[in-house]
């Protein structure tokens, strides 16, 4: 396998946790809220998902459990912000800390345990292509994510539900005046964002790197948060940003393995720089148009 084949084979899976969490947060932010607790929600999803897969052997239960646990945690955020009118930044950070703490608690007796990941499903013929072939051998979640992103885009941009979500975010008073339950819609979006972050975390701990270790999310929640902002709250761009970031991380490791004469520290910081620059260029181009 060449180094390029390695990168192509890994991009989608490596980007998926970021992508799921970022798209979830994007929906939250479209309703006018900001949940800073993504890292903690991903960690909780990862811990609960891992424990479920370890105990039952079922990835369906693991992924669903991870998503559910993080969604419940995100409802604590919704309760504080929407119910008690607490400050969003403080509430989000609090939920994040709580999530990290809970993940450590649930995962404590499973530290460094491993499970099996999911099998790769190959597209006939295409997966035999040289270099690009690996792109067409992915696990079921990656395959499901592709139509999932399209559906999310379609719902947000082309349906009434998407219009309502945006209306709540852009002018809550007007949305309320024409009879929409702003609090309920926002709570729904927060729960969706939590579930997506939890799913991303559970994917990371049960499929991408099928082991549990406290702290394994390693900052990906914060990257997801940044991707939403630099992707200017647009499904396509956030997706592009997540893929770009994943590609550059893998590319950096691949370049080292291939013996490139570039300092590894530079390669390690490149994903952050390039993703930010690319997304800024994209949004600047759009403003001029």
């Amino acid at each position: 396998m060449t180094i390029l084949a390695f990168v192509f084979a890994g991009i989608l899976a490596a980007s998926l946790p970021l992508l799921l969490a970022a798209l979830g947060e994007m929906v939250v932010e479209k309703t006018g809220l900001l949940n800073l607790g993504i890292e903690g929600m991903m960690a909780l999803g990862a811990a609960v998902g891992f424990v479920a897969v370890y105990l039952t052997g079922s990835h369906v239960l693991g992924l669903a459990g991870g998503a559910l646990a993080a969604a419940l945690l995100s409802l604590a955020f919704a309760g504080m912000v929407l119910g008690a009118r607490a400050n969003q930044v403080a509430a989000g950070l609090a939920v994040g800390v709580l999530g990290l703490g809970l993940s450590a608690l649930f995962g404590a007796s499973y530290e460094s345990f491993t499970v099996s990941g999911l099998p790769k499903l190959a597209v006939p013929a295409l997966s035999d292509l040289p270099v690009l072939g690996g792109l067409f051998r992915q696990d079921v979640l990656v395959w499901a994510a592709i139509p999932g992103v399209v559906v999310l885009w379609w719902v947000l941009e082309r349906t009434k539900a998407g219009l309502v979500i945006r209306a709540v975010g852009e002018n809550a008073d007007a949305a309320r005046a024409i009879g929409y339950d702003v609090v309920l819609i926002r709570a729904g979006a927060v729960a969706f964002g939590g579930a997506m972050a939890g799913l991303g975390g559970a994917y990371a701990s049960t499929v991408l790197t099928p082991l549990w270790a406290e702290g394994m999310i390693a900052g990906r929640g914060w990257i997801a948060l940044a991707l939403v902002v630099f992707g200017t709250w647009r499904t396509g761009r956030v997706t592009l940003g997540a893929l770009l970031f994943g590609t550059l991380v893998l590319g950096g490791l691949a370049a080292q393995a291939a013996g490139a004469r570039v300092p590894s520290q530079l390669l390690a910081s490149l994903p952050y720089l390039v993703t930010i620059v690319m997304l800024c260029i994209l949004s600047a181009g759009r403003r001029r148009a």
Partner: protein
Amino acid sequence: MRTLKTLATLALSAALALPAAAQDDTLKAMVMLPSPEGDVGWSFTMIESLRRVQAEYGDAMDLTVITPIPEGPDADRIMNNAVADGNEFLVLGSFGYMNGGIQLAKRNPDIDILHASGYLTEDNFAPFAAKYWQGTYLMGMAAASLTESKKLGVVGAFAIPELITSINAFALGAREVDPEIEVSVVWVNSWFDPAAEQDAARALLSQGVDVLFSNAQDTPSVVSLAEEEGAYVFNLNSSMKAYAPSRYLGVVGTDWSPWFAEKIAGHLDGTFEGEFAWLGFGDDVLFMADYSADIPDDVAALIAEREAAIRSGDFDVFGGPLVDQSGTERVASGASMSDPEILGMDWHVEGVTTPLPN
């Protein structure tokens, strides 16, 4: 994120870690580490070693374990609290605890502190490290006997001398058995990111590497991946054979308890000395275990011979002639490297193909 995690840890440690009541005749010891304890790895080995010493003292020694504490100002606060709570013997298990730890030692001459991987000393502040390179040399020999592609790979955390030295010894050992062998390195630039560690290992495997050295990963990320992909693998500190039952090459293990026991005894009778301890086979701190049964008998015999010679001092891992990556001779034939030179090694030997980041 670091601050957040620390806040959470602070709350937890306040709730869980400090209930032990002080008794005058009980030695109160505390160990602080940057990664969670787990069942394998750096933190696990350090805590286990202390527990082994504690078992000998029974009720006369009280051990508090505080993990995971990121390096930084919060770590300083936590170690200060531990001293305020009556702990008189501290083990600080990470390089980045050094500055806070040495200040604490200066302010409290009655306590004694052991510090992993550092270089500063005080009368009551003793840094320590393991000579992993003694073991990685032997693992290089084992790897060379099993590789088919003649390409070995290393997943490294950070490009610091301690890790560079282990990699160099690994390459030297491999090339003693087979001079055609090449070693590639991928630096993850993180002490802890299992997903990136696995991707780094995959990148190496895609280049035809068929033996992996998991250098300073505290989880079985690389080891379990190697089993899955059919590559031989070894790691440091504690055995991870359970994660790679068919592909486990062995472990360069550490058991700190003999040295901890000595320092604790020194603390109790007032003979504690703050000097750097570099611990290897001869100190019974470093040991080899769980060698793969696939290693051919003649190489296994040669490995045993080399280990004995390293122990007795008859064999010098970094004995000349040593040539660096650019072909320049660094150590002349017959010469050897001094301890400070090995401790500060910032160049790769010939045979390591990856350029070193600087």
